Structure formats: C-alpha cells, structure tokens
C-alpha cells in the first residue's frame, strides 16, 4: 500500500540512492548562443554541430582538455595553435570569442551530466482508438471522458498526463493520497488522513483537523483499515504493457 505520498521514508531512500546534482553553474545565455553560432559555423564540420564528434574531430564533451578548462584558460592557448599534425587549424580569436566557445562547450557538458535537467521528447506515439478501448475496459468504472477527465488533454502536457495516470499525485494538489480508519478495542473508530504509521504507533488527523495517535499493542490492535482510492492504479502497474500506456496517453491527449 505505501506510496510516494508517504514522503518521509521515500525521500530518505532517495537520498541513499540518488546522486544529487551539484549547484547549477550559471552561463551567460547570450554568450552561450554566440559560442554556439561560432562553433556550428567554424567547428561543427569536424566536431559535429552538437560538439559530440564527427567524422574527423573528436567528441568535445568528453575531451579532457575541454573538461579541465576553466573559462577558456586552456582552450584559448590551444585554439591559437590548433593541432596541425592532426589537421586541426589554428584560430585567431578575440578573448570574448574564446569565452563564448568555452561557455557553449561547458554548458553542453553540464546539460549532458545533469540528468535532472533532461527534457522528455514528444511521447504521443500510441494508438488513440486502442487507448479508448483500454480506457473503457479498465478505467471507465471510476473515470469519464466527459466527466472528471473532461479537458484533461488541455490541462496537462502529454508527459505529465502519462506520469499522472500511471501514478496520480494528489498530494501535489494538496489532497491526501489515502485515508485510514482506526478502531480501538472498545469499538470506537476514528477516520482521517494518516500522519504517522509504523509498527509501534499510528496517528491520523480527522476532517476537523484533530490529531489522534494510538499505540499499536499488536499488529491487529487497534484495527487499522486503509482506504486507498488509487488502489486500481497500483494494481494496474503489474498489468499494463508499455503499449497500453502509450495508447492510453494517445487517447487522453484527445480529451481537449
């Protein structure tokens, strides 16, 4: 049952496993753009327009010379001489041009290395008709294209739409993911949003904002029931094919 809204344990886990990006370096956008233009016209023929290497020149995003460079301090002297033995010409550049090229290359390296900034492409590849069929068979008992999902294709871009039906994130809209009810030995029941739940105690907040906590004397006492309105979404995770997911996305984006 637990899910991503149970954010404390999940975040703790992610800090164990995920590599944190370093603080984003700042590159002057205009300088990067000028560097890019120069690079494409003067260097792209050999090194590729994205600097990832071409038929003659190496990948500069993996070049130790470029990686070790700081603000053009190594690149400038290098470009002034080139590498004539390998067919790399010398360039006469102003200090500003060197800085622009360095900024373009370092920005491109940063973009490759920082996975948190990767951009997802157009993901609408599925068959909308097949998606509608899947929807009718698996989703229509809870959702309606003319009811709760009306205009959903306008509300979200395709990536967020897909991410959200695979695993909805009500907590991002200030809504609880699930509710629990706790029934004590004397038969009293309290219902609300869980605030804490472990092997030793359980706590919740009811709709009036009151906080309750209970010691768990045995796994069954007090009795705890979990009401997860997203259970059907969890169950589908093991049943979807990737094609089902893509078809559903293709269908849902049509609900403008």
């Amino acid at each position, binding site marked *: 049952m637990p899910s991503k809204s149970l954010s404390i344990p*999940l975040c703790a886990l992610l*800090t164990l496993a995920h590599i*944190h990006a370093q603080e984003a370096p700042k590159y002057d956008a205009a300088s990067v753009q000028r560097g890019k233009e120069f690079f494409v016209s003067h260097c792209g023929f050999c090194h590729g327009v994205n600097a990832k290497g071409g038929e003659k020149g190496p990948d500069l995003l*993996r070049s130790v010379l470029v990686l070790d460079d700081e603000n053009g301090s190594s690149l400038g002297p290098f470009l002034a001489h080139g590498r004539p033995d390998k067919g790399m010409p010398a360039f006469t550049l102003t200090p500003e041009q060197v800085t622009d090229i360095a900024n373009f290359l370092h920005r491109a*390296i940063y973009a490759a290395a920082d996975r948190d900034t990767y951009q*997802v*492409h157009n*993901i609408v590849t599925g068959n909308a008709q097949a998606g509608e069929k899947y929807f009718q068979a698996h989703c229509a008992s809870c959702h309606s294209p003319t009811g709760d999902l009306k205009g959903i294709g306008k509300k979200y871009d395709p990536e967020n739409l897909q991410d959200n039906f695979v695993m909805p994130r009500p907590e991002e809209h200030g809504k609880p993911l699930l509710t629990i009810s706790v029934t004590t030995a004397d038969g009293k029941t309290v219902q609300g949003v869980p605030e804490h739940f472990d092997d030793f105690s359980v706590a919740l907040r009811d709709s009036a904002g009151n906080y309750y906590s209970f010691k768990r004397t045995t796994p069954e006492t007090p009795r705890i029931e979990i009401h997860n309105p997203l259970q059907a979404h969890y169950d589908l995770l093991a049943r979807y094919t990737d094609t089902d997911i893509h078809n559903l996305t293709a269908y849902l984006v049509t609900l403008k």
Partner: protein
Amino acid sequence: MTISKVLACAALAASFSRAQMLDPALLGKPAVDAWPTYNGDYSGRRFSTLDQINQGNVKHLTLSWVFRVKPGAHISTIVGGEGPMPAEGAPPDPDMSRIKSTPLMVNGVLYFSTPDNAWAVDARSGTQIWHFFWKTKGGIHIGNRGMGMYGNWLYFETPDNYLVSLDAQTGKERWHKQVADVKQQYFSTPAPIIVGNHVLVGTGGDSLDVPGFLEARDPETGDVQWKWWSEPLKKGDPGSETWPDEYSMRHGGGMTWIPGTYDPELHLYYLGIGNPNPVLTGRSRQGENLWTCSIVALNVDTGKLVWYFQPSPHDTHDWDAVQTPILIDGEFQGKPRKLLAQANRNGYFFLLDRTNGEHLLTAPMIETMNWSEGLNKNGQPIPNPKKEATVDGVLVSPPTWGATNWPPPSFSPKTGLFYVGVVEAYSLFYLTDTDPHPEGYGAAERDAGFISGRLIAIDYQTGKIRWQHKYPWGGGAVGMLSTASNLLFTGDPSGHFLAVDATDGKILWHAGLADDIGNGPETYLLDGQQYVLVAAGDTLYSFTLEQ
C-alpha cells in the same frame, strides 16, 4: 611459528606502543573488541560473535551517549585540502552532516568520516578527540563510507578525489594523493580497505562517461602499486569482445563505489563493479559491457583479474553491482564450500563459489520485477530489450535506485540467513538523448509507484525467503548487523533503531532516533561491556545494557 616470524611479531608489537595502533591481525577475524575495517572484518558478513546482549536482555538496552557532528572549519579543526576556504558563516553542505560511514573502533577510539570531514571520538564518552576538515575543489558530496586504518595511520577519500592519510593520534595530515580528476566528474565515496601493505582505493562518478578503476596504494607513501581498470583498455584485450569499440569501453563507466571483501587464504579481493555508461541507454555500447555490473575477484598483490560473474549483462537501468559481496563458509548441496553471496540492486540474490566464480544460485528477492526474460545457462538474468528507455517511456521495476542499494546487508552463520532491506517500486524511463552517441545518463526517470518496503531473510542455500517483515509505511535498503545471540540490528523507515529476532523477524526492542539510520550498525566490546553503535542523520548513538 618460526623464530624469524616470532621476532617479526615482537618487532611489530614494539612498534605498536602508541595507544591508537591497529593490530593488522584484527582485520582477518570477526570483530570482538574492535571494529577495525568497514565491514568489521574482511568477510563482509557484519556478524559479531559477541553475545553479551541477547534476546533476553536486549529490552534493557539503553543510550550511553550521542555525538552530533559539526562539519566545516571551526576553531579547533585541523584543515587540509586544495580548494578555497568556505566563506565565514556559510552553512556547510547538508550532505556533510549525513553519516553513512561505519566508524572504525580501535583501542577505545572511533574514527569516521562524512564528505570532507573526519573525526576521532572517544568510544567511552562520545567526546571529540579531533576533527579534520578538507577544503574541497568540488565534486558531488553524496556520501562517504568511512576510513581505513594501518598501524597508526588513517585513510579516507574525498569528493574531489584525494586519498588523505591522517595520524590517528592527532588527526594531522601526513599526505594526500590525487586519485581521479574532479573535472571529469569523478567523485569518491568508498572507505579504503587495507590488505597487507595495500590500501585499496576505489572511485565513483557516472554523470559523464569515464572509466572506473581500483588502485592499490602504498600505506606509507601513498604511491600507486597497481591499478585495475573496470573495462578492457584496447581491442583484443580479454572482455573487449563485449564492447563495440575502444571508444565505448574507454567511456564505459564501471565505478568502484563501495568497499569489497577479502579471502586471506585465496588471496582474492572481491569487488562489486558499478553500472556502464552512458547509464540508461545502451545503443552506443552493444554487448555485455564487461566488467561493469560484475562481481570481480582480483589478486590482491597484482591487481590481476582472476574470475568474474556479471549479475546484470548490458545494464541500462543504473543497477550497479556494488552491493557487498559477502563471503560465506558453509554447506551447499551437502558439501562444505567457499561461497560468495550478493543481494543485487537488480532484484536478484546470487550465490557463487568464490574460489572460481562458478554460479550456484540465482533467486528473485522482489515480486514486482519486470525487466528480465529469465535466466541464461550461466544463471545471469536476460535483460528484456523492450524495457530499455524509449522516447515514449517504459515502465520498469525496480527503479534506478534498485530493489536494494549500498547499505550493508548481513549474514549470520548461526541462522544461515542473509539479511537485506528491499523495496518494490516502479519508474518510467524516458529516452532523452536520441543521438547515436548519447552521453551521461541519456534518459530521464519518473517515479511511478511505491509498492512495499521489507526486511527479508534469505536462506543462502536455496535463495528462498525464510521470513520477511513488511513495514506499514515506506522502507527499503538499510544497514544490518547480526550477532551470535541471534539478534539482528537494523532500522525501520520511521526513525527507529530495531533489534529483531534473527530467526523469525520478530521485533524485540526499538528506540526512536532523530532520523532514519544512515549507516551499518556495529558492535564491539569495550572495558568488557558490549556496545552497539549506529548513525542516524548527523548523530552517532551508542547503546549498551543498563548496569
């Protein structure tokens, strides 16, 4: 013992006159009155023969002291490093305040590290003896697994890839040596392991596409004795047939994030190797990509590869194989064997013969796993190519962070059970770098559902889960310690430190800490009394029995 050996021992003993000295003989046997290396001993079992704390009295475990770290440069701090001094009053990087290392305990003193920081603390009282701070040139500060010790010398690694040696007595620096280039996005996390006169030093960093390696360095000078690359270096070398070309193998990743284990009889160092690069897309590196995602056995004196087994051939999900390869001396199918077991990030448990790498057993640890098409004749999972990241997204379990992760598991020879924290979850993997030569990760991941977190006890002879404890809320990879009194110490996802019955998983004792436990718990005898030490967040907690 020959006379010359006796004399050599006497000379060694004489040279160990200072209180902090580590007797190297401690490293090869289960820890009792010391915790002298990352895993307590070379086996990686994190099993203690101590039984003063037992199932009957564990409920009387009580807090002895706490020690909260204050990283950064303070008045009494010893400062080293080649980077700039942090601005006065600037808050330290929060990752410096997360203790992930397993402290060494030698002669009543604890030695541990976080990124850029190292401490010596009195194990009797929690009093700081010294603090060392390293001025960094950068690098990702995600974590530091701890220190290694040789005689009176300590060794630790920094995020900007220096091996730093300190005098254990004073905390003063002896020397530092560069291990890798931070500009190439290397950053170093492992605890150095000392075997004989070798300091074994690994590195990390998979943001860009650089090759991994392990080095042996001289404990006195810090000079490189040998260097083993985790990929073949040129076409025609063994393993190069598993890469399309030299270029891809030289940019193929394979980091050595986590310390390995060692068999003194076989003279082999066992090390789990990191994932290949580019990380989440394999288009530019067709093939099995040796020795990424492999368990390798290296001759500790030469650094030569003796055997390997690859749990994740051609990985495209960041499932490094660096989880501790635990050495088990026990029966398998009725015969005593020298074994090696690993609970792998990819969701499977593996059992090998550690003399030659022969595969003995592969067993799934989680039910949600959906990436494999079964096992090949060598017992390796066969990756389903359709579960590699696509532009429109594929749903995969486990996520990149795996069914388990680096936190140390434990094996008890008393119960025959392997203890590990596992998680069942899904992620969507989107290919973002569609270039024929992708770089870095090459794909993005979006969390897609957390199903369960469990503590499981695996029968190493069958791979079957003997018992499991599912947490009501969260859970996953977390450090473990087992003891001869059939206690298992670990943490739950709600900030509790737990003592569990190692035979059936029943929770016998718990204490709420200020954070979830962040390292592997350890135990030792001090002044005749057994202590259990654990870190949670920025604090060490020392527990012992009420007197």
